[in-house]
């Protein structure tokens, strides 16, 4: 498996993703700096979390204009799987590869905690009872137009939903797929749920693995 992780000034979850993909799943991983264009050749493209361009203008707005994202659009046009995590989700919304936008959490706080989740759409039943992943964001409150929301529901694009909505997201959306289900974005961090952690139970460190296994099913 060949994966690529796009990085921008201010990305800070890129190395976690590289470690996860390389060490946990045996992938060969290329880091693609924002100034580079590329010819789509990878099985998966990941857009990592962080604060690209310091969140200037809007979260993800400047990253969406970068040269590497032009190439990412070409990869999307070929139907290659693209996964945006946290700031990566915000970037994919700004590129319009995903509908809607992510705004400030309703309680205005940056929330850093494990959050309970359930699968939706095509991912219904993909996760065990009590499933959870860590979140860490200030702007994870998903909004979209009424028409977009109707389409999201009709097409089963909300593949990951909060069972206790932490941030005010419309329709409890924690993860959203494009209409063709090849581009996905999510606020939770599966790459942070692969090791035994101080604050996690033994079963929770499996949760990240379960998520990645579902992602890998998107392979062509």
């Amino acid at each position: 498996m060949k994966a690529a992780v796009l990085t921008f000034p201010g990305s800070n979850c890129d190395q976690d993703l590289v470690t996860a993909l390389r060490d946990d799943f045996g992938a060969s991983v290329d880091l693609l700096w924002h100034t580079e264009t590329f010819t789509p050749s990878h099985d998966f493209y990941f857009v990592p979390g962080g604060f690209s361009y310091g969140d200037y203008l809007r979260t993800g707005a400047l990253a969406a204009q970068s040269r590497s994202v032009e190439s990412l659009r070409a990869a999307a046009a070929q139907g290659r799987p693209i996964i945006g995590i946290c700031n990566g989700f915000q970037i994919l919304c700004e590129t319009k590869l995903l509908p809607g936008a992510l705004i400030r959490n309703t309680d205005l706080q940056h929330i850093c905690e494990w959050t309970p989740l359930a699968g939706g759409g095509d991912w219904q039943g993909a996760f065990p009872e009590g499933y959870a992943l860590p979140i860490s964001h200030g702007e994870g409150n998903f909004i979209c137009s009424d028409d977009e929301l109707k389409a999201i529901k009709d097409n089963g694009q909300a593949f990951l939903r909060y069972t206790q909505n932490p941030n005010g997201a419309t329709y409890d959306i924690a993860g959203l797929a494009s209409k063709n289900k090849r581009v996905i974005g999510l606020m939770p961090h599966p790459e942070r749920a692969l090791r035994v952690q101080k604050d996690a139970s033994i079963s929770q460190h499996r949760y990240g693995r379960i998520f990645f296994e579902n992602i890998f099913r998107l392979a062509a």
Partner: protein
Amino acid sequence: MKKFSATATVRFKKSVLEPQGKAIQLSLAEKGSHEFTLVRVGKYIEVELEAENAEAAEQKMKKIADDMLFNDVMETCEIHVAEAKT
């Protein structure tokens, strides 16, 4: 080529939570100024650009506004272009 000054005023849509304005309003209310019933904070972007004429300058501004300066899911944008004072 002529020089132009342009501005883009970006406002959150009324339906969208705008916490900075809310915080300012609450701060005013704390001090007893309850007459300020709404405060909204937006962005004011100043641009200098070169273009053949005013129409071309306006088109260039409109393009960067649509591509980048605002997100129509949550914001509106008003642009204004004028020939730069030399």
